[in-house]
């Protein structure tokens, strides 16, 4: 008891100082989690950066790792692989120029606004750097996609799949969700049917579409013949092949959009809708002013998740076309995989880092744009 009293007195009058064990306890409890994060996330990231700056060679007794600095990145950005990554840049068409001027104007306005709002020097520099990057990306797109002589490389092809795929997946998914949210007969059945493509592995979808798209002996061959297109092969045509890949991707991932949007639609409050009906609002007005704002938070998250995932597309182009014709359907991941198979592990890691940078940059821009739109910080 005396001891307890004494201890209490110490606690009450002096700065609390436990034993070494007590002081180390928080760190000890946290350490496993920190180690797991370090081991599973940070360490591979650092190791892969090291790999991206190395050249590996299998030799007697093991693997020789030679540090080559930025050489793998140099090869991709300005060396022999530049054309694969960036494509062939050419004079943009008038539409391309308009697009570029539009983006450049917006970016300059954003920089001007940052300066006028007297933000910190760091913020202005960051915004300027982001603007330059975005203008650069836009130029890459217009000089390859919006140019008669241009040809997109893997970087632009990847962004094209992401932009077109996600837009259409969202629109179709939303349309189907709106339909299934109605009290229509058979809606439960169609909910299951619409979900099925998502249950199939991407490789399975690739083979499925490869069979379907075979114009020589596929099930749609009679249709091609009937349309007089027996001498046309989508696989020979850059846009035909890209469209085939996009159709497969849209078919597979629309259900994901559908199911989440359906949940959002069914979760929205009915009172505002009923009030709007009483006030005589049209269906479009209800959708535009009540439903869409209600599902906007879910939509933005959904698009962000899909966008990050869509940048990694590999299965469909790999199985449908192996990235061909030429480099028409090759994505960054497929490109990385192709050279990884030939044991250029450093080059493959460098591509992975470029992809990581691209995804982070675009995702950050997207999140900032949404925040500004919603007026949150």
């Amino acid at each position: 008891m005396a001891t307890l009293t004494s201890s209490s007195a110490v606690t009450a009058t002096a700065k609390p100082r436990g034993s070494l064990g007590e002081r180390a306890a928080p760190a000890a409890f946290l350490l496993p989690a920190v180690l797991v994060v370090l081991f599973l996330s940070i360490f591979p990231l650092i190791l892969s950066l090291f790999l991206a700056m190395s050249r590996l060679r299998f030799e007697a007794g093991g693997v020789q790792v030679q540090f080559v600095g930025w050489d793998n990145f140099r090869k991709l950005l300005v060396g022999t692989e530049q054309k694969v990554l960036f494509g062939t840049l050419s004079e943009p068409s008038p539409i391309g120029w308009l697009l570029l001027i539009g983006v450049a104007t917006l970016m300059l306005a954003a920089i001007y606004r940052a300066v006028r709002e007297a933000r910190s020097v760091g913020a202005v520099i960051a915004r300027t750097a982001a603007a330059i990057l975005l203008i650069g990306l836009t130029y890459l797109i217009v000089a390859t996609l919006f140019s008669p002589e241009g040809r997109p490389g893997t970087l632009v092809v990847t962004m094209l799949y992401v932009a077109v795929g996600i837009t259409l997946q969202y629109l179709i998914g939303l349309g189907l969700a709106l339909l299934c949210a109605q009290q229509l007969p058979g809606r439960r059945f169609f909910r299951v049917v619409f979900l099925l493509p998502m249950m199939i592995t991407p490789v399975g979808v690739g083979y499925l579409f490869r069979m379907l798209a075979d114009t020589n002996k596929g099930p749609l061959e009679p249709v091609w013949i009937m349309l007089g297109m027996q001498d046309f092969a989508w696989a020979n045509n850059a846009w035909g092949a890209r469209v085939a890949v996009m159709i497969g991707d849209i078919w597979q991932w629309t259900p994901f959009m559908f199911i989440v949007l359906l949940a959002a639609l069914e979760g929205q409050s009915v009172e505002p809708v009923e009030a709007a009906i009483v006030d005589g609002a049209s269906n479009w007005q209800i959708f535009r002013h009540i439903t869409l704002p209600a599902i906007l938070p879910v939509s933005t998250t959904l698009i962000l998740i899909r966008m990050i995932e869509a940048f990694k597309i590999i299965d469909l182009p790999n199985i449908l076309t192996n990235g061909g014709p030429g480099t028409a359907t090759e994505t960054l991941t497929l490109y990385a995989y192709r050279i990884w198979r030939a044991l250029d592990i450093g080059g493959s890691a460098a591509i992975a880092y470029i992809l990581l940078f691209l995804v982070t940059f675009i995702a950050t821009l997207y999140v900032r744009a949404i925040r500004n739109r919603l007026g949150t910080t």
Partner: protein
Amino acid sequence: MKKMNRLLTLIAVPAMVLAACAAPPTAPAQPAQPAADKKFAGITINAITFSGPQIAEPMQRRGKEFSEATGATVNVITVPFADLYQKILNDFATGTNSYDVIVFAPQWMGDYIEPGYLEDLTDRVKADPDLQWEDIGPFFRDFSATYNGRIYTIPLDGDFQMVYYRTDIAKDLGLAPPRTWDDYLAFAKAVSEKKLTTDDGKPVYGSCIAKKKAAQSYWMVTSVASAFIQSQGTGQGAFFDLETFKPLYNNEAFEKALNIYKETTQYGPPDEINLDVGDTRGLWTAGQCALTIDWGDIGTLAIEEGSKARDKTGAVILPGSTQVLDRKTGKLVDCTPELCPHAIDGVNHAPFAAFGGWSGAINKASKPEVKDAAFAYLSYMSQPAQSNVDVTIGKTGFNPYRISQFKDITNWTNAGMSEQAAKDYLGAIEASLNSPNMVLDLRIPQNQYYQGIVLDGAIAKFLAGEQDAAATMKEIEEGWEQKTEELGRDKQLAVYKATLGVQK
């Protein structure tokens, strides 16, 4: 309860359907219990190859026979062809050693043998009379199986590319089998212009060549280019200059080959640049092609049940050229006796030993008793009693590689080939094998990068119209030079010369 019943039904119905689809109505097979007195009882051999079904099928079938005879268990692991090279290398390099036997392309030997991953089989081969090593064609013994004078693999397959033509169409149109690549184009064009159809109304194409990207197209273009680039015999090589190790793929000869290769596309199926070898073979057996470039597989596939090309399939050595590369100037010049010493009637043929034939090797890190069993397994598959049958079956993917397989045509006629077709087919293979100007496939370290990435990528862009011949050749030259600089020019040159040391 109703919910529970529905749940059970939901689980049970698909399960029953799956069970009905998956299992034949027979008693489940019991794993064979290895008898204790059998030579390799209790030993398990893990073998890896590509997910054919070719190659894997005979490995599994013969593996079962081998198990019954010796008590060893053979596990055949398959991976897609495109993954095989690095899968094996990763396994060896990381010390995982999951595979005791690898059945692979001898082209990759350099990458596997130099680090010391493969077992030297020289003494085992010499001590195994059943293998009948001397019956194996000299080219396969010396190129596919040997590295720096030591034997590392057991050949299971013989690979050359040849040109196949439809004998009935040639006869009807009064066309001779192609001797030169110009003949090939003329033949293909003539058939294409005739707009022939099969009995079921499908179009017959003048030429079908597998041109799909990241598949096997780079071998096809090399088959076309070889006759223009190499004329002085095997030792001259067809990929790099023997003095400087500069690529031989940026000159008039390769430009000519590129243009021929591209022109064949005009006479092929509309989606030819997206067709792999399996697709063109399917078209051939469906009777939809008048010409094709392929390995020996077409000969055996043409006689399989359902084939519409049975007894209509002729084979010839790869067409040649009357002009060849002058390596000093980079120009195409007319053949002279000095320039083309091996020309036949003024035509320089350079048959291309693409791939080199599937071969089996043993992991040096495997246990001694497993190595013994593994060698016995490979030897069993390669012995004439087995291989002379397997090479006549299309689905095995194995092509002739033993002398006895060329000399005795009984197995071929037994398999359903007419005597004439057998003589034709084997004659074309023999003509390639006997050619002193055979082109050896690239076997230097990281040849997979040189061919599968740089060459294949440039050719794909050329075929797709993304770039012209000049840009294509420049891209190949720059890509190869870059890789050579990375790996060391002198080292690469030394290995290249060593591989070309094989003279017939």
